[in-house]
């Protein structure tokens, strides 16, 4: 059943796959982010309570949602790496960690900038904000642990266990606003009910969310290729790619 996945344990195949997907992710990320941001920031109607300040939602919500999804993706990569001992899975894990950390930071930063004018405080130690901050620390922990080992297979295992254990934080972040009373409001779109947002405001948000997904995928493929280059630079298949690449540039 999973046979088609097996070739991707080889760095060579992963490198080729990344090279093939990367331009598509790049084009769709740029197109979607420009469409969503321009639509959301300029043309979507202002909110009845918050006026124009609510527009920061078009960056805050995608970044916050994807900081969690990236963590789950990273943990799945860690699981594959640990159980099936794929080196490429650990490389994917390291490639995703800083991207997710940056998303978490964007979510926290835009949240603070939104909280000051609306709530009246940059930061409150409520369950949602605190658990999101812990997510940032988890990302930093995975990155630091990976870089603490010289043997990258050992490093992958150690950081992978940490990434897997940290997964318990993801449902805590999501349900924090339901389990406890918090200053942060409840979920607008990630619930089974109808989204509590007017349609003309919702569309640009959805476009931006897909745009952020493509952006993360784009940066991840780029970083994964770099990681492979760094680790496998001397392999014959790699030198042949490099030689072919430089040959092309001479021809042009």
């Amino acid at each position, binding site marked *: 059943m999973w046979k088609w996945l097996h070739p991707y344990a080889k760095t060579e195949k992963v490198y080729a796959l990344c090279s093939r997907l990367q331009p598509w992710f790049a084009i769709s990320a740029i197109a979607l982010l420009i469409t969503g941001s321009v639509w959301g920031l300029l043309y979507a*109607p*202002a*909110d*009845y*309570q*918050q*006026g124009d*300040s*609510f527009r920061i*939602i078009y960056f805050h919500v995608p970044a916050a949602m994807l900081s969690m999804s990236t963590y789950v993706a990273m943990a799945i990569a860690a*699981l594959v790496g*640990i*159980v*099936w001992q794929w080196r490429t899975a650990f490389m994917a894990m390291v490639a995703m960690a800083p991207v997710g950390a940056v998303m978490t930071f964007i979510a926290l930063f835009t949240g603070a900038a939104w909280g000051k*004018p*609306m*709530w*009246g*405080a940059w930061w*409150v*130690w*409520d*369950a949602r904000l605190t658990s999101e901050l812990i997510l940032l620390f988890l990302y930093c922990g995975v990155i630091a642990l990976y870089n603490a080992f010289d043997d990258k297979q050992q490093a992958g295992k150690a950081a992978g*266990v940490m990434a*897997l*254990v940290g*997964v*318990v934080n993801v449902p*805590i972040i999501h349900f924090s606003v339901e*389990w*406890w*009373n*918090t*200053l942060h*409001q*409840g*979920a*607008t779109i990630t619930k089974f009910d109808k989204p*509590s*947002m*007017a349609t*003309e*405001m919702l569309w640009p948000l959805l476009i931006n969310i897909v745009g952020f997904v493509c952006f993360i995928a784009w940066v991840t493929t780029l970083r994964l290729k770099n990681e492979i280059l760094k680790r496998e630079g001397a392999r014959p298949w790699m030198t042949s790619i490099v030689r072919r690449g430089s040959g092309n540039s001479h021809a042009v």
Partner: protein
Amino acid sequence: MNPRRKQRLKVIGGIVILIGAAVSLMLYALNDNIDLFYTPSEIIDGKNGQVPQVGQRLRIGGMVVPGTVDRNSQTLQVAFELVDTGPAVTVLYNGILPDLFREGQGIVATGTLVNPSTIEAHEVLAKHDEEYMPPELAEKMKGIKHVKPESGAVQ
């Protein structure tokens, strides 16, 4: 799946489930402390059989009761009542209220309990809900007239 992989999967699964269980027990034990604020009825009737003491520093969260906002025309002193489902609690505050502060709005105030149903607040934060809609729709659905934040008027 070969036995070594199965073994590793079991070990990893076990670790994650154990830590998950440990964290959930911890959060369950700390449940009351993770709540950001007391609701007005918890201050009057007590939470888990414990009524907050006079003099205690605490946070309260509730809805501003329409018609109870009393502003001093000379100073920044303001008094209003907060309510959830039960009795109301009076909040006294001396300072600038957030833009979103209006009657019927959710508010979180930090301060000291000066008598069993009055709080002297030193910080008032506005809580907004998860609904976003243009002003015309809000007026049609809820009868709320849009107030521009810069006008600062309380309706």
